[in-house]
Each structure stands twice: as structure tokens, then as C-alpha cells.
């Protein structure tokens, strides 16, 4: 952490302060009830977390990807589910601010950065996961409206969010036929499926989003027709850093809990931290998280500097940080013994929450494909 600037330390401390006081004490309850707390999202918006790396013109904080990684890491120490959801909102907000025409930006971005409006991101479809360019949802221009038909799956915040950033096909031509749209929650023809019963991230609703002759103003198209897939790709590197950062923070919280537990737990007449088996485990967990953190910060710095190997580093960081975080969280559960398996100790929630970080925003297998492909391109 000594490599951070004074401002980055302040930002990180502030995010941690918020996480510890406002999020962490509520995380178990949110997980049980399956609720996102709108008031916390609003409080986060007031502090500038609604558009962390969105430009300052419409209320964004104008910070770097490294700053964002520091923030999501700390917020996730409080609650992975809320932190990860906020990261999706940030990605959608950034996409509109970066690629929409000025009028559309002015209409949505100020309220998104302030978290008066919350945004979800709709790319994945039942038949288009890793192969996102094969998406089938269509958008047809009729007069001054687009008519959307199709369905999106695994949409975080479906039914909760006010605004949906949707990738849909305006033309047949593969990736080049995809365009991006903003769909308001009350648009006619928009509906939501049942909440998925998930292993983790239970505080946030995940559901299908259905478009049945869903009509939106033609002016709600982000950028030009056919540019959508480019926007989606542009968001991926940063999205992967966010997901990795949230995993890292969750794993840190698991380690913190385990470290406290092994100092309290007495067996064979002494605290179990006095056994070397415990110490070795703790030392490995600490080392592994430090290594993951170093790779994450380097990848974020490369993305900020737009180096040619940024995509490779973001993929490497996403794969390594999320795998390491899951392992460390699982080790933290093991250190708790039988109690780790109980909900009261909250480590099992962290293990459940972190599992999906190895799957979404590109599975960790796809990350390996990207890394190998970049290597073959000569970016060794």
C-alpha cells in the first residue's frame, strides 16, 4: 500500500470507513432477505461512487481505474454483493457517458452519477454467453421508435434498476450488427422473470429481462448503429478489474475474520493461532492476497496508461485474483472449523459470494483464452 499516492490512500481509507460502518454490519441480513439497500446506494452516490471513472462534466468523479480498483476492494470488505452491484452501475454509467451523444448523456448521466437512477447492464442471452457476438435480441427502427424483441439472462438488478443498457441487433452482420440502447424500467413491453435462486450475490436480484415489442424512443440509442459490440468490448477490461477488486476485498474480509477467530478459539489449552499449522495457513493466505493485489494494481495501472498489454493484464488479473480470492476465502472457512460452515460466522457467505467471480465478466477459462491469444499476437 506504500506505493499509493496520498489521495489514493485517502480514497481507500474513506471507502473502507464506509464499508465497515455502513455495509459490513448489514451484509448477513441483506444476504438472507435478498435485498439491495437503496439508501446505501444513494449514500454512495453522494460520496461520488456513482460514476467513479466517469468524466466530471455530468457529475462523475473523473478518477482512474486504479482508484476504482482500490474503492471496490475496500467496499467489498463490507459487502461483496453491494460492491459488485455498484461496479455494474459504474460500468453502465461510464458506457453512456463515453459513447452516447451529448443530449442523451445530459439526460441520463447526471442522475446516474448521483445514483438517483440505478443502471443494469444487459448483454448475456440464453444462447449467447462467452460467444456474446451471437446475441439474438433485435431492435427495429419504426418511425421515431426502436422496437426491441428478445430476452437477456443473468441480469443483475433486473426489476430493481431504473435504467437498462441493452445490447441488441440492428443488423444481421455478426458483431458489427449490434447497437446499444437505454431502456427505462417503465418502457412498454419490458418485463422481468422470476428472481433466480443463486448460490451467492443473494442481496441483488438476478433475473431474465424480456423484450416483447418493447418500444423506446429512437433517441435512446447510445452512439451510432453497429457500434454496440465495440462499446461492450471497451467496457470489458475495466469490468474485469472491478470484479477482481470486489473478489479481493471479500477475500480480505474472510482473512480478517479468520485471523480474529484463530486468536480467540481455544483448543488443547491454547489459542489455535499458536499452532504452526494455523500460522503456515495464515502466512500463505496473506502472501497469496498480496500477490493478487500486486497483479490487480499493475493491470489497472496499465489500463489507465492504455499500454498495448493492458487487455492481457486485465485478463490475467481477473483470472488470478478471483481464483486466489476464492481459495483464500475457502481457507478462511477451514480455519473456522465447523463454525465456518454456519451462517453466523459469515465466512460461508463470502465463499458463496466469491464463487461467481470466477464465472462472470468472462469465465476464467475465457480469460486463459485471451491471455494465450495475446501471447500469440506477440504481446508476451
Amino acid at each position, binding site marked *: 500500500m506504500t506505493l499509493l499516492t496520498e489521495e489514493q490512500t*485517502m*480514497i481507500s481509507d*474513506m471507502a473502507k470507513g*464506509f464499508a465497515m460502518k455502513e455495509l459490513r454490519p448489514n451484509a448477513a441480513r441483506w444476504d438472507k432477505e435478498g435485498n439491495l439497500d437503496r439508501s446505501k446506494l444513494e449514500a454512495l452516490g*453522494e*460520496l*461520488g461512487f456513482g460514476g*467513479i471513472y466517469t468524466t466530471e462534466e455530468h457529475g462523475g*468523479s473523473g*478518477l482512474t481505474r486504479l482508484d476504482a480498483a482500490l474503492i471496490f476492494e475496500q467496499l467489498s470488505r463490507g459487502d461483496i454483493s453491494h460492491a459488485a452491484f455498484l461496479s455494474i452501475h459504474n460500468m453502465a454509467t461510464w458506457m453512456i457517458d463515453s459513447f452516447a451523444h451529448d443530449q442523451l448523456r445530459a439526460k441520463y448521466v447526471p442522475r446516474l452519477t448521483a445514483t438517483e437512477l440505478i443502471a443494469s447492464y444487459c448483454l448475456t442471452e440464453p444462447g449467447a454467453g462467452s460467444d456474446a457476438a451471437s446475441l439474438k435480441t433485435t431492435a427495429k427502427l419504426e418511425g421515431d421508435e426502436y422496437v426491441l424483441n428478445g430476452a437477456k439472462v443473468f441480469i443483475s438488478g433486473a426489476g430493481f434498476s431504473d435504467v437498462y443498457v441493452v445490447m441488441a441487433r440492428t443488423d444481421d452482420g455478426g458483431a458489427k450488427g449490434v447497437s446499444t440502447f437505454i431502456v427505462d424500467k417503465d418502457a412498454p413491453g419490458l418485463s422481468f422473470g422470476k428472481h433466480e435462486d443463486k448460490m451467492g450475490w443473494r442481496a441483488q436480484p438476478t433475473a431474465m429481462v424480456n423484450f416483447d415489442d418493447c418500444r423506446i424512443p429512437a433517441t435512446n440509442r447510445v452512439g451510432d448503429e453497429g457500434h454496440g459490440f465495440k462499446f461492450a468490448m471497451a467496457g470489458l477490461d475495466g469490468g474485469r478489474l472491478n470484479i477482481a477488486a470486489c473478489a479481493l476485498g471479500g477475500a480480505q474480509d474472510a482473512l480478517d475474520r479468520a485471523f480474529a477467530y484463530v486468536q480467540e478459539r481455544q483448543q488443547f489449552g491454547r489459542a489455535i493461532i499458536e499452532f504452526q499449522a494455523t500460522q503456515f495457513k495464515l502466512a500463505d493466505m496473506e502472501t497469496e492476497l498480496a500477490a493478487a493485489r500486486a497483479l490487480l494494481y499493475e493491470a489497472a495501472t496499465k489500463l489507465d496508461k492504455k499500454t498495448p498489454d493492458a487487455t492481457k493484464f486485465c485478463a490475467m488479473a481477473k483470472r488470478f485474483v478471483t481464483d486466489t480470492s476464492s481459495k483464500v476465502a475457502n481457507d478462511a472457512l477451514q480455519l473456522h472449523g465447523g463454525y465456518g460452515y454456519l451462517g453466523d460466522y459469515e465466512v460461508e457467505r463470502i465463499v458463496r459470494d466469491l464463487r461467481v467471480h470466477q464465472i462472470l465478466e468472462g469465465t476464467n477459462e475465457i480469460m486463459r483464452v485471451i491471455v494465450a491469444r495475446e501471447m500469440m499476437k506477440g504481446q508476451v
Partner: protein
Amino acid sequence: MKVLVPVKRVIDYNVKVRVKSDQSGVDLANVKMSMNPFDEISVEEAVRLKEKGAVEEIVVVSIGPQQAQETLRTALAMGADRGILIKTDDNVEPLAVAKILEKVIGEESPELVILGKQAIDDDSNQTGQMLAALLDWPQGTFASEVILEDGKINVTREIDGGLQTLSLQTPAIVTTDLRLNEPRYASLPNIMKAKKKPIDEKSPGDYGVDTAARLSVVKVTEPPVREAGEKVEDVSELVTKLKAKGAI
């Protein structure tokens, strides 16, 4: 009105404090430091008064090592306007702090000085009172409410028997207690803006104050380890045991 808020860089309240093996003090190596929580409350109160329009300028001052600048930045990010860093690596005792602050006040002429009632590192709880005596200003210590009204400062203070409200003539000294307010988080844009706010650098010598220690620390020790308690099944067993120990 201009308000002066002194802030101190102390060991973070979350840190588990360790005593040095030679018992000369507390180990500060590699330990997280942050703004004294009572001073955070002081800054928050000053910012709230400014937001109400009762205050035009908030000046924060810190006496400490170079890193105390970070503490000033935190105050600037919360909403203070400018900072003064009085740089010294010495441990400055409350009387010397009060004497330096007296000189700073001479230059800045604030009408109100808000200090934390104590710093959580040494828990002296002396600086505000000493400063009031040196300046011969009225003081309202342990404030749980501060209201500015018709050129007067009404301070509600927490005392043993309940609450007491004092009406102070300006200029005055107020020291803050825990329940005065809940300090805000500095927002991301305000953290970035704080970077551009000015911080003047001075030294105790600039104010002609001798900061040499007048007290010597004989020994610092850990508090005794709490002994394990005893569990009882019910109230009657509790009462029997208490009687046996002569407690009731």
C-alpha cells in the same frame, strides 16, 4: 466569522496498541495513523457552521511531523479552507501546543477555536483549557451542542449530573465531545479538491515557542490481562456467589 480547528495525527483508533519492549512508550513503527476522532468532530462542527452560513473561513492547524500534512488534507477534504503545518518531530506537550496555538491565533484572529476535548493517544484533555487560560478567553468544554446566536456561542456541555448550557462571548474556545455530531465521509470530488487547497509550513521556532519536554515518562506498561470470569446457572447461584465473595 473565522474558525480555527487544531487537529492532531494520532495512532488509528482501530489499531491494537503495543507497548515497546523497553517500556519507553507505544510502538509507532508501521502503525496506521489518522486524525484524532475528537478533532474530526471539531472539523465537522466547523464545516456545519459554514454550511449554515455562520462561518466564512475554516483554518486547520496541526503540530507534528511532515506526515501530519495528511491529517490536514483529510480536514481540507471534509471542507476546511486552508491548513497550517507546524513541523516538528518532537513530542509536544499540551502546554507547548497551547502556547503555539496562542501565537497562531494572534496571527489569524479567529473568533472561535474548536478543539477535540482530548487526543486518544495521551488522553491529556488539557490543551483547550490551557489555551483559554493563556488567551483569557471564555471556554465551553465537552460540547454536545454548539449554537451561534446574536454574536454569542451557546454551548451545551455534558457534565456528571446532566447537561449544562453556557453562553459564551466571542472570541471563545470550544472543546468537542463524542456526541456533538457524526463526522461525514469526505466525498471523492472533495478529496481531489483538497489537493489544491493551500497548506503553509512553519516550525515551532517561527512562533518563538520552546517545545522542550517538561514532563518525563517513567514507564509505559500494558494494562493487566483480564482474568477469566465464572459462569453461573441462575440468579440464585449468582446471589450465593456474590454473598460468598462479600460483594453484597
